[in-house]
């Protein structure tokens, strides 16, 4: 038996810290939650109100814009039809809205953090272990403070999803900026470019393929959180899987899982196609 005197009250500290946050900054969190919720609910209602065929056409249009390939556009339209044919259209739209908002928040937080990490070795040294922790910690753990801060529901689900999904985007933004050819960077500086001009005009455009790969990975991680998020009240496809588990209905669970896979294919193919297009004219080799 490990001696009790050597223990330290980590769990108490964290409980107290989260309590302190809730008591003193509850209003701030509520205001933040309200604006995210407003966005999410608006998007969700919008998507559900749209005629199904318009959504299918929009997906096909985006796929074509990303890849310029008719094959991909038709394929992804078929994937949407599959979701509808499983009777999960409405739930899929809820999950789609949740994903879009979660990914938007991930991008808004992840890219600037990645830029900071690329510019400061010290910040990066502090950040990397935190990112490792965020990715390795069982994702259920995030649900607890999220629920305490934002209550059960969609906003907590988004917070937990973002925490889980943001590390690859930060890492790959940092990597992409650090991999920019130092001679090109020197060229930019030698012409008197300000740090901002160098960042926006040279580093970010040349890091774009890496950033797009990061967004793709973040999306895949976010989709992996769909079922877990449904445990704290997020609606959508995750709910189906959870229901399948609780009521011992394997068919319900499997259909829900299949629809999640369908959404994953959709997001993956579109973001990869955009990523491939961002790779054109990014190096001078051959």
């Amino acid at each position: 038996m490990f001696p009790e005197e050597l223990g330290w009250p980590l769990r108490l500290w964290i409980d107290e810290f989260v309590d302190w946050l809730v008591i003193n900054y509850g209003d701030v969190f509520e205001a933040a939650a309200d604006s995210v919720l407003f966005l999410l609910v608006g998007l969700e209602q919008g998507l559900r109100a749209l005629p199904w065929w318009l959504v299918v056409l929009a997906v096909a249009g985006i796929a074509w814009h990303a890849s310029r390939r008719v094959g991909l556009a038709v394929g992804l339209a078929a994937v949407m039809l599959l979701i509808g044919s499983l009777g999960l259209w409405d739930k899929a739209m809820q999950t789609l809205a949740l994903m879009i908002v979660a990914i938007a928040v991930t991008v808004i937080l992840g890219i600037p953090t990645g830029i900071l990490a690329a510019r400061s070795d010290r910040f990066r040294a502090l950040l990397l272990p935190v990112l490792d922790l965020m990715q390795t910690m069982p994702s259920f753990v995030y649900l607890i403070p999220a629920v305490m801060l934002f209550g059960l529901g969609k906003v907590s689900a988004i917070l937990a999803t973002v925490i889980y999904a943001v590390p690859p985007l930060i890492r790959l933004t940092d990597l992409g900026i650090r991999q920019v050819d130092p001679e090109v960077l020197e060229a930019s500086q030698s012409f008197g470019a300000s740090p901002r001009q160098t960042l926006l005009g040279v580093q970010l455009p040349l890091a774009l393929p890496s950033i797009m790969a990061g967004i793709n990975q973040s999306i895949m991680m976010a989709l992996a959180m769909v079922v877990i998020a449904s445990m704290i009240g997020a609606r959508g496809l995750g709910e189906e899987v959870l229901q399948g588990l609780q009521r011992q209905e394997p068919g319900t669970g499997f259909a829900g899982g299949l629809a999640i896979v369908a959404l994953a294919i959709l997001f993956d193919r579109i973001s990869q196609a955009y990523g491939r297009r961002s790779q054109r004219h990014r190096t001078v080799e051959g």
Partner: protein
Amino acid sequence: MAIVEFTDLFKVFGPDPAGALARFRAGADRDALREAGGHTVALADISLAIAPGEIFVVMGLSGSGKSTLVRLINRLIRPTSGQVRVAGADVGAMTDSELTALRRHRISMVFQHFGLMPHRTVLDNVAYGLAIQKQPRSAYEATARRWVETVGLSGFETAWPDELSGGMRQRVGLARALATDPDILLMDEPFSALDPLIRRDMQDQLLALQGDLTKTIVFITHDLDEALRLGDRIAILKDGALAQLGTPEEILLAPASDYVAAFLRDVNRGRVLTASSAMQRTPPQVGPGQSSAASIAPETPLETVLPLVAEQDVPVAVVDADGAVLGTVSRQDVIALLVPK
């Protein structure tokens, strides 16, 4: 007056440059500093002045400090000790906005691997320095187009750098550097990544451009033939120190050390040395029937003089632009210079 001036300049790279420099000044060995604390003495006690309008070549093997030297001029690297002055102003003491103005308007740079922006077209690369100055596109586009044309890339304005050959890429780099109309052009081994034939074309093009523009050019190279061909003056660096500074002819005729002499061993002397070095200044009395039919200018290279003196037994007269006889060159004079002891 010098346009670029280095005074007592030292540059040390490593975790504690000032401490390492103190030890170096106290007599510590370059290699010992590298092994002890990972310090590199890149430049040691450089003082030299570059005149406006000259092509000043800095020549040395890799690790001799030549790339560092050129980057001190636009403060891509800061000196550990000593001063760099551009047109009289201390570059190390400049504020950010003064430095930005210097880089935007007075100095531009050409890079070994071209440093082109792969996500910008040829025209947008050439226009980069102008775009950075926040001029509107309408104001600078014509200038950029003119420079694309000057370097012979008309028709490639909308091409991407990855679609060009090496020589064409460096022409873009040269046009980009010239487009801001700087006084000083820094060229860091600009042609060493190119094939020998292309390299020669680029050297010719640079000399032709310089004939029209008269910029001050600081040209880095590790290729002695290139240095002799382009340089009005050459500074030879060895282990960060100045081994010799002079015109190509001065260096060739009087190498300052065995190190420099070893460098010069394979040089085509006939192309660098001129009639003025070979001639006898007090012409011997020329008797009747012995006067030479031919006359040559003092800057004629010896490889051109040699066939002339080979044909006739009498010395050839060296005559300046006004027709005054400066001296004579005999067969023996030419051979003595071409084949050193």
